[in-house]
């Protein structure tokens, strides 16, 4: 987007200068007339950035995949070939199926719940005097709702590590 804007603007200035009656260094009305001009140039030009953006996106995707397969180093080992190169082993499962530890996921999910709570509490704490009683009641309702999730996790044993 920036690129299209940047290369369009000199062209605009050229039009303004060619029309003659405005010195483009002094007239800061031009900011408005640039916008107006943008609209007047009709729908065909307005669609052009879309195609340019689509072209760049497709080009980048094709270029990246293509170049990576040519110049990328290929030193495979067992860890590299796994779906994720970190954490627990996704496969194979123990014989006959079995469980894999979900403690990490559980911890991460709990973190999200409380993190979001803090994210909402913070702006309220900054302006709670302006929000008054309304803000207090709303925030208590919100904390209560989060507490429902907390109660569920607690009762279902989500807080026990083993």
């Amino acid at each position, binding site marked *: 987007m920036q690129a299209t804007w940047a290369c369009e603007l000199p062209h605009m200035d050229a039009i303004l200068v060619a029309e003659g009656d405005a010195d483009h260094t002094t007239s800061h009305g031009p900011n408005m007339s640039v916008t107006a001009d*943008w609209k007047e140039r009709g729908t065909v030009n307005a669609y052009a950035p879309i195609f340019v953006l689509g072209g760049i996106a497709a080009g980048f995707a094709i270029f990246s995949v293509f170049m990576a397969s040519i110049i990328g180093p290929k030193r495979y080992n067992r860890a590299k070939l796994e779906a994720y190169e970190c954490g627990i082993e996704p496969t194979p499962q123990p014989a*006959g199926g079995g469980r894999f530890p979900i403690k990490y996921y559980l911890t991460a999910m709990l973190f999200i719940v409380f993190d979001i709570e803090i994210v909402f509490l913070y702006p309220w704490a900054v302006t709670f005097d302006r929000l008054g009683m309304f803000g207090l009641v709303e925030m208590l309702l919100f904390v209560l709702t989060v507490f429902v999730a907390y109660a569920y996790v607690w*009762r279902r044993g989500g807080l026990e590590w083993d």
Partner: protein
Amino acid sequence: MSASSVHSLWTTAAPVADKFPTPHIEYAQLSPVLIVLGAAALGVLVEAFLPRRSRYTAQVALAALGLAAAFAAIVALADKGYGTTKAHIAAMGAVAVDGPALFLQGTILLVGFVAIFTFAERRLDPRAHGNQVDSFAAQGSAVPGSDQEKAAVRAGFTSTEVFPLLMFAVGGMLIFPAANDLLTLFVALEVFSLPLYILCALARRNRLMSQEAAVKYFLLGAFSSAFLLFGIALLYGYAGTVSYSGISSVIDGTAPMNPALADTTGNDALLLIGLAMVAMGLLFKVGAVPFHMWTPDVYQGAPTPVTGFMASATKVAAFGALLRLLYVVLPGMRWDWRPVMWGVAILTMLAGAVIAVTQTDVKRLLAYSSIAHAGFILAGVIATTPDGISSVLFYLAAYSFVTLGAFAVVTLVRDAGGEATHLSRWAGLGRRSPLVAAVFAVFLLAFAGIPLTSGFAGKFAVFTAAAQGGAMPLVIVGVISSAIAAFFYIRVIVLMFFSEPKPDGPTVAVPSLMTSTAIAVGVAVTLVLGLAPQYFLDLADKAGIFVR
């Protein structure tokens, strides 16, 4: 006719909302949403604190009561005139309370209410270790086929969490068609999508397929959410606001220019890309071609009660949001979006109908038929007239109950492996159990749009609106694809009634009162809306004005 004068055909201007320091929420007008979400939170507490054996009863009662109370609140609001004369924008500009919102919310609540019955059905599967079982996995976290799963089944575990999940999904769906700014739209989308992803993964039978369906739905859904969100960012860049009326006034050129944003405000490229991306997100939820790829896999893999609920309620909510976006935000852009939507509608109708012909699984068949129906509804959306709105509202109400009923019938036809969804297994069903086959035939005829069913009334309304809105070619394509679709609906009917039953064919399970009620409601709505649609058409007509 200028853009703003056309705009006032289907919107009424609301008084401007107050500014920041004195926030006020119209709790009474938001009560349907609050009741449903409150019941959902209570459901989570039930799950945490009640002993296991009493959870099922408590959850079913709580969910049914919550939805019934919310529906009563909708009726009360409509009775007070919030659908027509008192329509306005509540909650500081976040949620619209107007005719289309109340109509669609009422539909979603009724659909959810009937869906509870199919969720709660426990008679279809034979008892496992002396415990009645429903359609959902004993323990979602147990690996399919593992010893832990067997232990969970032996212990009689059931996933009663499905009821709070259903309630959360309904809550999000209630906000989705009423959302009056883009951020509320996005939050509502996530609130109803996330529970649906989980529900899809919880089938008791064919668990691997069910989990695969959920992962596919989740990945593609997350992808489409990202499109929607990026589109919202671009529209914000274009208009400097996320509120629907704010964006539409920038498009109309009636908004005062904010000098700080003069560089980007009014940049049509931002508007067009943003509009395309937001529309993509919504068309994905609707299941329109070319964003339909997830539909057959997810509909097939998900537990059938969930499929029925998802196929009907999600469509109602997503079309509601699409209508509001196109009619309230973007009427000034209709010469830009209409050609694209024409293409999408034509592709959706034809692809849905043609691909459905080759399907051999009844759930996949219904999935492709739902894609074709999304195309028919899009034809009404494109009309851009007040009739377009009311016909779409009517079609959604009619279609959702047919879908719910049809999927409820699918849960009944079973063999040793659970539901027998392969079409060849349905051969001769009409000889074995004429009643079930006849009921399914009614639903298929309604899908096909045969007169005296709700499908005909809906299609007639939508195509009339499209023709009057200047979309005659769409109507022609629509009628052609209806004819193609009628072929495979009738083929199923012929298969059920005019072929010899196989000796090892599936049996029809005798359902409890729950599923019977769900199917009976489906048949009743189909016939009432088909035989005497006028009252409901008038209702949709009265509800067809958006607030702006």
